[in-house]
């Protein structure tokens, strides 16, 4: 370690970018070398000066709120371009239309007569669709009610097409059937009718080992506005609280933030098996003091009391 090296790397030192051993050596060197010590002081002083005179202030709450509102308004009218994006080129498009039963089937579930957009990404390759035909209806051309827009992607051969089909369809199969599963996932997220959402979540909860299903259940638990649907999602996720952190966190969140006391108390029950977890314990402590519902307060306290004291 010589003075040249120190001078070259002093910047890294003041910004904590040196490896631990290099940092140590530099400090040791500075103890023996007056010039380098002075250089170090000067560099430190520079850093302090830059921060003090032109501090990186936190944006005011007003500015943040105003920015958020403005963004929200803009998002409302922004097109979520990738919502039904199929990366199509012309030949591929023809392939897709040939396997339209998948598209037609997406409209399923009773009562979709209103012209619903195919808001669903095709996951299976055409070959897989053909194999499922034992339970799906024989392939037919979906009746396309109308093409509402065609948007070419500038600079590439891709195009995005939005179309409506008005054809009530039916699919029968077990929940292991990937077709059925895709539709259940769709319904759990997007259906207007809470009853249909609840049914689909109920069915999906029978297969939470699938990552996509689990994500859909977590989403329903977090964002569905119907407490019945949220409860069903919670039921499905229950067995995974132990070994899946994302499930545990979602349940913990529900415990702290869900507006419905029934959901919150069910969450307590599910978290009992992991009550030793620090985050869970903290949450329970918070609830035992602050929850609006007396039942929740006492329940949380009761569970906490069964924990051994750990410091």
């Amino acid at each position: 370690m010589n003075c040249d090296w120190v001078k070259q790397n002093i910047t890294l030192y003041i910004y904590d970018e040196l490896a631990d051993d290099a940092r140590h050596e530099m400090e040791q060197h500075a103890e023996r070398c007056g010039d380098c010590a002075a250089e170090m002081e000067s560099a430190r002083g520079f850093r302090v000066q830059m921060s003090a005179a032109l501090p990186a202030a936190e944006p005011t709450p007003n500015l943040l709120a105003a920015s958020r509102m403005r963004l929200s308004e803009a998002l409302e009218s922004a097109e979520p371009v990738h919502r039904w994006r199929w990366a199509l080129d012309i030949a591929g498009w023809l392939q897709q239309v040939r396997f339209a039963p998948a598209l037609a089937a997406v409209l399923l579930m009773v009562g979709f007569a209103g012209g619903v957009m195919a808001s669903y990404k095709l996951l299976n390759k055409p070959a897989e669709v053909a194999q499922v035909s034992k339970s799906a209806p024989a392939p037919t051309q979906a009746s396309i009610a109308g093409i509402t827009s065609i948007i070419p992607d500038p600079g590439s051969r891709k195009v995005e097409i939005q179309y409506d089909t008005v054809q009530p369809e039916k699919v029968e199969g077990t929940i292991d059937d990937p077709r059925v599963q895709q539709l259940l996932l769709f319904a759990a997220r997007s259906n207007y009718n809470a009853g249909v959402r609840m049914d689909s979540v109920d069915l999906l909860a029978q297969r939470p080992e699938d990552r996509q299903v689990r994500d859909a259940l977590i989403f329903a638990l977090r964002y569905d506005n119907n407490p019945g649907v949220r409860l069903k999602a919670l039921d499905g996720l229950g067995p995974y609280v132990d070994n899946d952190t994302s499930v545990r966190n979602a349940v913990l969140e529900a415990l702290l933030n869900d507006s419905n006391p029934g959901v919150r108390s069910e969450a307590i029950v599910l978290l009992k098996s992991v009550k030793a977890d620090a985050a869970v314990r903290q949450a329970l402590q918070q609830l035992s003091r602050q929850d609006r519902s007396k039942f929740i307060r006492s329940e949380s306290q009761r569970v906490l009391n069964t924990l051994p004291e750990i410091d």
Partner: protein
Amino acid sequence: MVSQTLRRVDDTTLIREAQRGNRVAFEELVRQYDRAVLRLALHLTGSEQDAQDIYQEAFLKAYRNVGNFRFECSFYTWIYRIVTNLCLDHLRKRNVRKEDAGVATDAEGNEYSVIEQTADARPGADPERDLMRRELGNRIGRALERLTPRERMVFELKHYHGLKLRTIGEVLSTTEETAKNTLFRATQKLRGSLADMR
């Protein structure tokens, strides 16, 4: 707070949801990054209006392109990349506009453009110290103006926002080594400028 930690861990779920067109999920993601984004834009531009514009543009761009996010880097890096590119554009435009903007000359005859300061303008208990601090703030502002947009950006991210050089490299789509050398040049220039101005 417990629930804030929980939210951070579940980025992946939120991102996947946002990619499926879920606006609520996207807005939740925005909440996690928007304060940092606004702080960056505000400090760099020195203007609340400009900061808001950059904020708006960055998140709209993110919304339109979230479908292209392939989890190859972290979402944090991805968002910072979008904002940084917008900030670089802003800096380049400002350099070009120097001729139009109010240009003043300092004691050595060097030109500099008048920039808005976000330095604390509240009257303090010690007016002389306030004046000195404002003076220093102006000098530093001028020194920063002398950096190239990239040098300014690297310095900004490192010094004022604490990003690691490795992250800065990723954000600027370059190597950590390049980011390091850019930082060296930036600090050398700044220390030189400040020494001259004393």
